């Protein structure tokens, strides 16, 4: 099992988008989104509400037609080559919708009849270990159990790519942990690739190894989480020396007091240690800080843009 994950699937691309864009009327929901998600990863898609997360997931699942650009699942289009792609992907929509009058057993029967790769034994084992009764209508299960039920259905399809839209949003902490445990166990067992959207950023580092930050319909950052945390730093120092310190580094966020400047920078080269000549403190930035800095950057740019427009008028 270990070997499969490490050697065959790690750097193959599961999901690739090229300048993928979607417009509703005059509004761009997603613009110029270019990504390549390696197979076997658990990727988090984070961003504020309205950033385009759901649109991106729907495009990947083949539920929407792109306005421009392309999306490929294991090298094929989910809208044009449906027989090759759709059996290989599962999509669990927001609020984990189920037919409320169907029992778990009914839902399994439906899954079995509709999906060629269906694994009924896997679904039953998982439901049993979760203590979800087969004969109760889905509508009568708790919120956490409904989420688990939707996930189990998605997993029983034996997908190579699993897309989850805000799977954790409505769950209490205990249900959230149970849900993630089922998901991560399936990842370990089958090596499937997961893309899950979330606006909860705490605990991401524990669950995900890849991060995509989406805001204002654009990708702000995408990459391996360890790589991201290794290339972002917080610098704290005297206000007047911003220019010198920032040389060769990308400033993601800067804040000032009368005497002190705090920067969050991105750099691929080793950061200079603060010495007597450069009295700057250098700290590792936490993943949460990094995400917030990118989201804040976008918000500030929008504000500046609005200001410019107002001045122009």
């Amino acid at each position, binding site marked *: 099992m270990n070997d499969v994950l490490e050697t065959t699937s790690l750097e193959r691309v599961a999901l690739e988008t090229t300048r993928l864009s979607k417009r509703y009327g005059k509004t761009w929901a997603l613009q110029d989104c270019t990504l390549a998600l390696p197979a*076997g990863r658990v990727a988090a898609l984070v961003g504020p509400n309205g950033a385009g997360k759901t649109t991106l997931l729907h495009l990947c699942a083949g539920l929407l037609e792109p306005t421009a650009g392309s999306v490929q699942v294991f090298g094929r289009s989910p809208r044009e080559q449906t027989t090759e792609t759709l059996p290989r992907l599962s999509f669990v929509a927001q609020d984990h919708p189920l037919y409320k009058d169907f029992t778990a057993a009914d839902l399994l029967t439906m899954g079995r009849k509709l999906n060629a790769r269906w694994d009924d034994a896997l679904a039953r084992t998982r439901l049993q270990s979760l203590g979800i009764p087969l004969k109760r209508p889905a509508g009568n299960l708790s919120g956490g159990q409904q989420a688990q039920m939707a996930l189990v259905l998605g997993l029983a399809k034996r997908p190579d790519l699993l897309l989850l839209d805000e799977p954790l949003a409505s769950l209490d902490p205990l249900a959230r942990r149970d849900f993630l445990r089922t998901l991560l166990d399936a990842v370990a067992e089958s090596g499937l690739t997961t893309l899950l959207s979330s606006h909860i950023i705490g605990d991401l*580092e*524990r669950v995900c*190894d890849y991060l995509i930050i989406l805001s204002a319909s654009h990708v702000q950052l995408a990459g391996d989480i360890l790589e991201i945390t290794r290339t972002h730093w917080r610098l704290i120092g005297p206000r007047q020396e911003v220019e010198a310190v920032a040389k060769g580094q990308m400033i993601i966020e800067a804040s000032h007091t009368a005497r002190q400047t705090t920067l969050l920078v991105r750099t691929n080269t080793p950061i200079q240690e603060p010495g007597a000549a450069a009295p700057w403190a250098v700290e590792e930035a936490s993943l949460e800080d990094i995400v917030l800095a990118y989201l804040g950057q976008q918000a500030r740019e929008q504000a500046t843009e609005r200001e410019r427009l107002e001045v122009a008028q």
Partner: protein
Amino acid sequence: MIEFHLDSRSGVAPYLQIVQQVKRALRLGLLEVGDQLPTVREVIAQITINPNTVFKAYRELEREGLVRSRPGAGTFVQHTLTSVSLASQAELRESLRRWLAGAFAAGMDSESMLALFLSALQEIQQEAPKGEEESV
């Protein structure tokens, strides 16, 4: 069998936390040569963690020659990190406890004791820079 735990607020990458916990168990003699590390799925059941993170931690330990993975069987301890025997560790612990009791009696708080300990350790390391000290 070792049990892992994760501190989300420590700022230490999760894979490194696992590496450190295995090393600590090796130092304290809680893991011995031949012992099996938990399987990835067991670790997931314990602490709800990304399997790739566990693989990464185990690979790192293997790279350092501390464990060895046998395909189909699991990951096993190959080397321990106990430089002194457990019996003499117990002795050292006892003398440390006596020192701590003395320091408390003299009115020191734990922070100043820690500071004193670290500065004395630094002093000794600078005097004899041949030891195999590890930063982890």
